[in-house]
């Protein structure tokens, strides 16, 4: 008998094992010039095993069929690895055909799923992602059906070529089976992303992360980073509970980094251990965005039509929250929870430190603000200005944005003004040092933000002044100086748009159109607000104001496609262009009557 001649079953198993080693271990060392050398040798061995197998008729038809399927699978993977897709497909198809009647049996289910995973990969290589999707979804369905109907740890495909005494433990079997299924989900996440099924892709990413935790198949830092990034997806969907859960889990898992790994993982250390402080700071930055978005979304809910806190809306939302609090959250939560019991406890403890519901008053907003501010400090520890200019400034900008949104919740105008002053104090020194040669974009952002902040402070001072019976000279001075600063930064921004010969562009590029127009509009308003007892000076200011308003109107006449970007501003400007000359005329008449 042929099998006997080759040394019988043990020899067959030996060949099979050798082929797997060649394919998985040796092939990594193949030279660039012969990249598939070991894969080809592995293939030859597998073919040999196939020959021997048909001759050795032991164990009956069913066993033989499964062994053949294993070989077809290995050959299929081998061919796809060596870029022979059609041959690979044939082998994989033959594997699934052989298994079709037994696919739900513990002997075959794992192999069947892995064959379908590979068919999915194969079809994606042919740019036919929908076909890939059908294979992967059917693998997913098979797993679910098997777990429902049987659920015992199934055989690992490699076991079909093992002697009885080498066979795996149930624990190991289950681990490998679950891993194959995790891969199915991981591929599906990619398929859905390619098909622009974003929500589904996110859900599968989430599940993949979850399973990595459950089956201990993860690197802490990489896992934490992925979870933190996923939280940013949830932020964009305003799913704050999910975002917080991802972040809390990221922080908890991150803290495992660098700990002594469990015995079975000793050979695998995490790739980017030396970047730990940077990774930690990055997770902190994701937390900052969480706090910021939560506050900003809450502001949007609470705003009235002039951007102030609407007390009716506030009461309404508070009542609504009370009603919903208990029912909704618990149901959603079960689906997304990460981790086994002790990890889960730490994650929950982490979550308790910050709310995931919209803050509705200053107290609640302040608590979220403070958490955000702590993460600002943590992130800044690594992203120092010396070495990480861009990152550092982004963090400071976030800090300023946190103050800005907190100010919305503050009812006292004086205190609100102080918050804006804090923003000025953190942004101005950075702006002063920054070289526009390399950081033009950031410079412009800072110019606009500083201008807007001064503008807002001036408005607040005017509002405070209006409550007084008579404006005192101190307030007047304050208002004027704030207005002057705002004008200064708007002008700096507009200057940055000039070409190297200092000429302002005839037509503004689309991306700076709105900021430039708003800057012009605000400057016009600011000149209108400047307070002076000197009528001549006042006339001059009105004249300047008119010029800026006119710029807007003329520009939009010349380039009508600019109109949609600044509709409100344009309307007001038109009004002012009509009104101002008359008021100036009146002022002039008054002036001349004194002469």
């Amino acid at each position, binding site marked *: 008998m042929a099998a006997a001649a080759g040394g019988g079953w043990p020899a067959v198993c030996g060949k099979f094992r050798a082929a797997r080693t060649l394919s998985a271990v040796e092939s990594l060392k193949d030279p*660039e010039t012969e990249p598939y050398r070991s894969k080809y040798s592995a293939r030859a061995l597998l073919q040999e095993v196939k020959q021997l197998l048909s001759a050795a008729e032991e164990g009956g038809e069913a066993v033989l069929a499964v062994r053949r399927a294993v070989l077809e699978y290995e050959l299929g993977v081998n061919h796809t690895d060596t870029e022979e897709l059609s041959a690979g497909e044939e082998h994989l198809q033959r594997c699934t055909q052989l298994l079709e009647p037994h696919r739900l049996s513990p002997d075959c289910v794992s192999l069947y799923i892995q064959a379908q995973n590979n068919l*999915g990969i194969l079809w*994606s*290589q042919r*740019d036919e*992602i929908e076909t*890939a999707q059908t294979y992967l979804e059917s693998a997913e369905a098979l797993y679910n059906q098997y777990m429902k109907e049987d659920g015992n740890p199934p055989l690992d495909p490699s076991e079909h070529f093992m002697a009885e005494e080498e066979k795996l433990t149930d624990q190991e079997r289950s681990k490998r089976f679950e891993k194959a299924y*995790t*891969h199915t989900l*991981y*591929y599906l*996440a*990619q*398929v859905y992303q390619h098909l622009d099924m*974003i929500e589904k*892709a996110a859900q599968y*990413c989430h599940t*993949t*992360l979850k399973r*990595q935790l459950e089956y201990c*198949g*993860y*690197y802490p830092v*990489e896992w934490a*980073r*992925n979870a933190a*990034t*996923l939280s*940013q*997806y949830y*932020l*964009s969907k305003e799913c704050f509970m999910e975002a917080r859960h991802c972040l809390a889990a990221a922080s908890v898992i991150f803290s495992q980094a660098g700990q002594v790994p469990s015995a079975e993982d000793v050979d*695998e250390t995490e790739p980017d251990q030396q970047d730990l402080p940077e990774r930690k700071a*990055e*997770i902190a930055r*994701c937390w*900052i965005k969480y706090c*910021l978005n939560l506050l*900003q979304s809450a502001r949007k809910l609470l705003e009235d039509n002039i951007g102030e806190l609407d007390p009716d809306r506030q009461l309404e939302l508070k009542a609504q929250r009370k009603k919903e609090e208990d029912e909704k959250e618990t149901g959603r939560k079960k689906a997304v929870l990460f981790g086994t019991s002790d990890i889960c406890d730490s994650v929950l403890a982490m979550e308790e430190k910050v709310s995931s519901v919209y803050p509705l008053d200053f107290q609640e907003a302040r608590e979220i603000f403070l958490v955000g501010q702590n993460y600002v400090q943590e992130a800044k520890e690594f992203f120092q*200005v*010396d*070495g*990480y*200019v*861009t990152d550092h400034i982004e963090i400071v900008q976030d800090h300023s*944005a946190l103050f800005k949104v907190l100010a919305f919740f503050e009812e006292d105008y004086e205190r609100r003004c102080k918050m804006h002053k804090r923003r000025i104090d953190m942004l101005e020194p*950075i702006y002063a*040092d920054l*070289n*526009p*040669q*390399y950081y*033009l*974009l950031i410079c*412009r*952002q800072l110019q606009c933000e500083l201008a807007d902040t001064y503008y807002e402070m001036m408005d607040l001072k005017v509002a405070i002044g209006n409550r007084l019976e008579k404006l005192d000279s101190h307030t007047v001075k304050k208002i004027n100086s704030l207005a002057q600063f705002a004008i200064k930064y708007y002008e700096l921004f507009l200057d940055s748009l000039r070409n*190297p010969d200092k000429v302002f562009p005839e037509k503004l*590029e689309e*991306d*700076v159109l709105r900021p430039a127009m708003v800057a012009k509009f605000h400057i016009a308003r600011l000149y209108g607000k400047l307070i002076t007892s000197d009528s001549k000076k006042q006339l001059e200011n009105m004249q300047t104001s008119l010029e800026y308003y006119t710029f807007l109107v003329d520009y939009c006449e010349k380039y009508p496609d600019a109109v949609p970007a600044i509709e409100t501003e344009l309307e007001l400007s038109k009004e002012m262009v009509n009104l101002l000359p008359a008021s100036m005329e009146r002022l002039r008449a008054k002036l001349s009557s004194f002469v």
Partner: protein
Amino acid sequence: MAPGVRGDLRDSSISLLNSPSVEGDAVKVFVRVRPPSDRPALTDGDQGLCLSVLSSNTIRLHSKPEPKIFTFDYVANMETTQESVFSSVAKNIVESCMNGYNGTIFAYGQTGSGKTFTMMGPSDSDNFTHSLRGVIPRSFEYLFFLIEREKEKAGSGKSFLCKCSFIEIYNEQIFDLLDSASAGLFLREHIKKGVFVDGAVEQVLSSAAEAYQVLTTGWRNRRVASTSMNRESSRSHAVFTITVESMEKNNEVVNIRSSLLNLVDLAGSERQKDTHTEGLRLKEAGNINRSLSCLGQVITALVDVGNGKQRHICYRDSKLTFLLRDSLGGNAKTCIIANVHPGSKCFGETLSTLNFAQRAKLIKNKAVVNEDTQGNVS
């Protein structure tokens, strides 16, 4: 190949188009068609070629069923000399550099399309006085010619300082080609100086001859490294940077201008196959490694489509794009030389190079004179 090197360059050039504040001069794009190699490939006449140059700025690609016509700032045909490539591409940028603007010249294209020939010259010669020398050595000559002329004109009132560095980015690691002993350099940022390679050797230059010397040493190191350390030069980017500082004294006021000139030989563009730009292909899980390493990329892509919400993405851009951020839609005068091989065999790569170049034309830069006035007027 690290994931994302070439792909990121492409991606960022596209994403910069949408970035909120890019404007001004468009990136200039030149296409150069190299002659098919020395072997007599022309035996079957024009049949063997997949493209023809129609005029000094249009090129026709013989695609089926419809041929495609591309328009660029300049198209150099097979007969174009090194000298004429230099004058139409680099001269202007070197001049702007003297006037205080930053400038960058990239060579892009598949391996074998003539990037190194265009930038450096014939590969077997270390002698940059050769008549076939490329853009980089010619830029040295012209730069120092201009400096000498300025000095003569301005007398003792004006002085110049030139420094250069030469680095290679391979597998997302930075190597200093002027110091073969160093390894693993890092990119850092300075609030005044922008992005720089921390610890890279900076050599002071006073003449073109010295610059050749530095270039030769660095180039030799690159070749040595590629053989001894199993690095493949077609997979690495080489960046030669010259800093030109001028100081002009006018009574009490000192005017300092500084500018950077980056000359970049990019890795072969066909390597983009290794990255996610290749289309729909799924990333496989490692067999041994438990890392499902592409998951992060998938998640990042999900976050990318976020609708204007504030978010932080934990995966930084590649070393090359970070280093050359200014040159791609930043504050610099930039030109890209897209090199193509006309052989029909190269049709696919040529098409993708021309498509890339077409997109690159849409990138806009805003160049600002880098001037810093010190001293007291009062």
